[in-house]
């Protein structure tokens, strides 16, 4: 018990003293996750809306695939992207492996099905009168879809935040594609895994506390938005 209390005190001290290693890992984590979620939003939201409002052969299959991809293990994504960007892979010449860009690549793939699926659910549950109303008031098809997304903005924001939660907390992609290089690709999660393995439990705990705080802040933000 004394061990845990002491570790907790050390972890708090590390956070409060803005320990360089902690700060770097936090900044890397957040910046990689933000870039990933930006790209995932640009791909996932239009995909979710498109599947939601159109009828086409094989729609059920697409939805089933999207659902399956939501549960994609991070190490599988890491493995697949590793194959693509490693020296012998099709994108090997770009030299992406073990860079933040590689992590963004992998985490974007991880987040797209989540953003697309949550967006799709929101669109499916939308009031059926939104698009007809916009059209009859003079909107074109694109403008009416834009109005639909405006009406569903909180649901779509929730989709984006769910995707952010997935990428900020994942460790497989960050470890396999980033390589956990200190001060460069080391994120909160890879640092926790490594430091705990080394027996540096306090540093791991400090990062764990920050990770939880980030998750809490993101959800509070979502809550505030939904109450507006």
């Amino acid at each position: 018990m004394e061990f845990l209390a002491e570790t907790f005190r050390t972890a708090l001290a590390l956070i409060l003293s803005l320990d360089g290693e902690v700060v770097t890992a936090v900044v890397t984590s957040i910046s990689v996750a933000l870039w990933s979620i930006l790209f995932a939003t640009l791909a996932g939201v239009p995909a979710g809306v498109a599947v939601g409002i159109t009828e086409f052969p094989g729609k059920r299959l697409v939805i089933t695939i999207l659902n399956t991809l939501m549960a994609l293990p991070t190490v599988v994504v890491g493995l697949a992207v590793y194959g693509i960007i490693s020296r012998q892979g099709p994108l090997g010449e770009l030299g992406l492996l073990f860079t933040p860009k590689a992590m963004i690549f992998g985490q974007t793939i991880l987040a797209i099905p989540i953003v697309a699926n949550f967006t799709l659910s929101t669109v499916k549950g939308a009031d059926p009168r939104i698009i007809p109303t916009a059209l009859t008031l003079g909107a074109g098809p694109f403008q009416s879809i834009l109005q639909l997304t405006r009406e569903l903005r909180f649901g779509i924001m929730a989709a984006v935040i769910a995707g952010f939660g997935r990428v900020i907390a994942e460790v497989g992609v960050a470890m396999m594609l980033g390589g956990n290089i200190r001060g460069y690709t080391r994120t909160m999660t890879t640092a926790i895994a490594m430091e705990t393995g080394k027996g540096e439990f306090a540093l791991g705990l400090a990062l764990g506390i920050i990770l939880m705080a980030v998750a809490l802040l993101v959800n509070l933000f979502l809550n505030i938005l939904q109450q507006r």
Partner: protein
Amino acid sequence: MNALYRLIGIRQSHGERTVLAIDDLALFPGKLYTLTGANGSGKTTLLTLLALLAPPTAGELRYEGEPVQWTNAALLGLRRQVTLLHQSPYLFDGSVFANVAFGLKLRGIRGDEKQRRVEQALELVGLPGFGQRRARELSGGEAQRVAMARALALEPKVLLLDEPLANVDRGTSELLEGVIAALPERGTTVIMTTHDPEHPGRLGGEQIHLIAGELACPGFVPEINASTGFQTEGVSNRAYL
């Protein structure tokens, strides 16, 4: 006078079922038409067709003498002349002002002109000063009036009204009846569905009666079904794109 709408051999089917079958019907500009018929007689289907939201399964619809081209580019210009007010209208999240100004913004009407038209439309429906209220916090009757103001602000050539007086109190109904009856004088063609047997007589204009999707014989006394409900059947975000 040239017809505004001409329906020739129109058939509208949902799967195997034909819900609208009109061989020939001409509707003229600047007139008021009341559209009557029992539930399921095809009134809303006809309005949806006239609003250019769904092409007919068969037949030809002409607007101002020209056959309607069911392409997005051609429809946009036509839809901006025709406005449909649904029986249970949807108000967008935001202020009453933003709702009434929605179609004006799409038409590039901004600044003082937009302000003037929104205020005038709200005044017409008896809701002056409601601009800053949140649309979602209005009562059912107020929402109906805001939706009417949103349509009136566009000064459309054709106003299609689906049971506009069904869910409002007596005072609001009288107010809206006055507004609707005055529209043809301003050059707006009004086509309005109703279940109220007194509306055709009280509002004037011509009555079109549908029985099982077909035009009833002239002089037919309509059997009125007084039940009114929120109809979302056939309405969908994906159906119109």
